[in-house]
């Protein structure tokens, strides 16, 4: 139905481009606005949520670690306050108490020891041979002597293994002693390590000097031991920031954008630093962004394809309508012309019939009078009779001519009526007889008799066949020939063939002869509409028109006309 050729017309190309641009801009602008707004809002709130979550996490973890340390200290304090020096300096008593603690808390408490103010260990219970050890130079001992309770930093100690010490100083009954316990480093490390998120999240604890208090699980891709420059800012001014959780986004030593969340614990002695790579923390967001981006690319692609397809359909439809309108206009003009010619012919025919009737009557009257006796004897009687007969004959001829004119011009509308096809053809042949004579063309007709009636528009059929006959006569104009018109019944169709022995149509033109405005006649001679109108009429009637031609031999137009069921039976 759609011919792509139509889009060659610049008018339609511009129209199509405009439609495409309008559709695309109307679709794109809101899409881009909505998408970017939603993405921006989503990203902002998601970030806030992630940071808030990390803060909560670190805060909880800080509490957990603090309470772990507090608990351990509490246990040792309870022990120190519950029992006197006598009991505690007894190693078997200490062994007993250590066993109780280990039973309650697992292997968190590694050993117990009682140290006198000189730094000498008086009693010891534990797996190591540490009795009589001297701690007077140890940092924890000096700190513990100054305070009531003390939890040391992690250090290697006398055994060369990382550990830290919980120490409680007690003065009672004239004795001053320190009850100390080694806290299992592995258990503590596991507690700190338990905060693991995503692929890259982990926590470490640093002391005030920035020394590691835990050993992070080693992963070669992770910057597990951060450079001092990264956490230096967290260690500054710890007094004012003890209860604060601070968040910073920095590049780690591997140059990965990383989120650092820091919180002080153990009253500002230690700093818990949680770190996670930015990309990991926002993995979901990045995934969403990727999906959105793909959709943002695919959506517009669909819109563009849709816009182009839709515009093509619309423009093609418009082009088709324009073409139909143009054809219709031409048809209306043609029909109008025919109608006015018809009216004129009818008027002339009527006006002529009356005077011709009078002439014939007068001639008849003369014939009557010739019967009078006196004229009967005239020697020219025979000549009078011949002349009168001639007037009558010519009058009859006038009548025939006017009748043909009238019957052709009677109706130039599309009113459907019962049609005897052979009669129509006969009439047209008679009408074309004169032209055929001048073109030296003999017209032959082979009509199958008793064909069923057609229910079609007479004037349209006349138009079609007159056109075909005229075309045939044109084709034979130069050297004459013969025109054969044949009618026959084939199944439920009446087939009419108009065959001439004219110049024929070249094969290259055969496909185009039904196209509007296609003509091989010189400018001003043909409109190129005749056959296209024929085609339109026959097509509308539900029939078809075909052409066969051989150059130099002639052309045959075959018209198939549908016979409606009721008539076929008649």
């Amino acid at each position, binding site marked *: 139905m759609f011919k792509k050729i139509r889009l060659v017309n610049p008018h339609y190309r511009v129209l199509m481009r405009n439609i495409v641009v309008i559709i695309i801009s109307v679709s794109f602008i809101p899409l881009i606005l909505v998408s970017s707004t939603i993405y921006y809002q989503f990203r902002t709130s998601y970030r806030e949520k992630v940071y808030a979550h990390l803060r909560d996490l670190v805060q909880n973890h800080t509490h957990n670690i603090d309470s772990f340390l507090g608990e351990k200290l509490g246990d040792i304090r309870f022990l120190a306050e519950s029992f006197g020096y006598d009991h505690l300096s007894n190693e078997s008593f200490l062994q007993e108490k250590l066993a109780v603690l280990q039973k309650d808390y697992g292997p968190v408490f590694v050993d117990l020891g009682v140290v006198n103010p000189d730094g000498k260990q008086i009693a010891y219970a534990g797996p190591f041979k540490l009795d009589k050890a001297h701690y007077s130079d140890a940092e924890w001992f000096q700190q513990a002597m100054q305070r009531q309770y003390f939890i040391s930093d992690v250090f290697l100690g006398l055994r060369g293994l990382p550990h830290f010490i919980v120490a409680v100083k007690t003065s009672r009954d004239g004795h001053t002693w320190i009850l100390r316990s080694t806290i299992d480093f592995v258990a503590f490390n596991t507690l700190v390590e338990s905060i693991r998120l995503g692929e890259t999240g982990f926590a470490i604890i640093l002391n005030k000097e920035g020394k590691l208090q835990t050993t992070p699980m080693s992963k070669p891709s992770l910057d597990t031991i951060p450079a001092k420059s990264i956490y230096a800012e967290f260690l500054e001014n710890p007094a004012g920031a003890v209860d604060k959780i601070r968040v910073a986004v920095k590049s780690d030593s591997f140059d990965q954008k990383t989120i650092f969340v820091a919180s002080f614990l153990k009253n500002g002695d230690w700093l818990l630093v949680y770190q996670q790579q930015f990309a990991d923390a926002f993995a979901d967001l990045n995934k969403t962004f990727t999906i959105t981006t793909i959709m943002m690319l695919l959506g517009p692609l669909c819109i563009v394809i849709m816009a182009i397809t839709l515009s093509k359909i619309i423009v093609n439809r418009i082009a088709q309508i324009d073409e139909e309108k143009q054809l219709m206009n031409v048809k209306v003009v043609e029909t109008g012309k025919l109608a006015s010619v018809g009216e004129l012919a*009818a008027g002339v*025919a*009527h006006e002529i*019939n*009356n005077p*011709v*009737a*009078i*002439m*014939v*009557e*007068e001639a*008849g*009257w003369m*014939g*009557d009078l010739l*019967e009078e006796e006196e004229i009967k004897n005239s020697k020219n009687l025979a000549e009078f009779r011949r002349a009168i007969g001639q007037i009558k004959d010519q*009058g*009859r001829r*006038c*009548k025939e001519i*006017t*009748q043909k*004119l*009238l*019957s052709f011009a*009677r109706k130039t509308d599309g009113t459907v009526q019962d049609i005897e096809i052979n009669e129509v053809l006969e009439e047209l042949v008679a009408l074309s007889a004169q032209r055929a004579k001048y073109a030296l063309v003999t017209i032959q007709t082979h009509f199958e008799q008793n064909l069923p009636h057609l229910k079609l528009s007479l004037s349209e059929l006349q138009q079609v066949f007159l056109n075909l006959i005229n075309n045939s006569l044109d084709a034979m104009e130069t050297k004459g020939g013969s025109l054969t018109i044949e009618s026959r019944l084939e199944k439920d169709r009446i087939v009419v063939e108009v065959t001439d022995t004219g110049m024929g149509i070249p094969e290259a033109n055969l496909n185009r002869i039904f196209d509007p405005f296609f003509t091989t006649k010189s400018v001003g001679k043909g409109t190129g509409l005749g056959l296209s109108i024929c085609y339109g009429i026959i097509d509308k009637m539900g029939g078809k028109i075909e052409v066969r031609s051989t150059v130099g031999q002639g052309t045959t137009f075959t018209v198939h006309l549908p016979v409606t069921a009721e008539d076929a039976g008649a």
Partner: protein
Amino acid sequence: MAKTPQKRATPQISLLLVDDEVGFVEVLSKRIIRRGMSVTAASSGSEAIQALRRRDFDVAVLDLKMEDMDGIEVLKIFKKMAPAMPVIMLTGHGSENSAREGIKFGAFDYLTKPYELEDLIRKIKEAIGQGGNCDE
């Protein structure tokens, strides 16, 4: 072609001829009179109605297209005034539709101009024969 006139051998057929073409009415009257009928000519519809008021006719020949009144209108009036009178219509119109319409309104038959006088005479006689005044 020419029949011997049957002068007053049988009761004369009286004919009302209506046509607005004066030349046509004149020559046709002469020819019909020559064939033994009496003709009253009227050159318009109203003239014809007046003539019919004055007397009865055996048959009327009526042109379908006239200046003052349409032939069909005149026919209807004729059928009211003298329902028994057969009416033959003449038409210069190539189209026979109006003539057929006339038959619907009670006309006996029609002829298209120009015609052979013999055809008209035959139709007149047929009409009267049908009407009961057989002449042949």
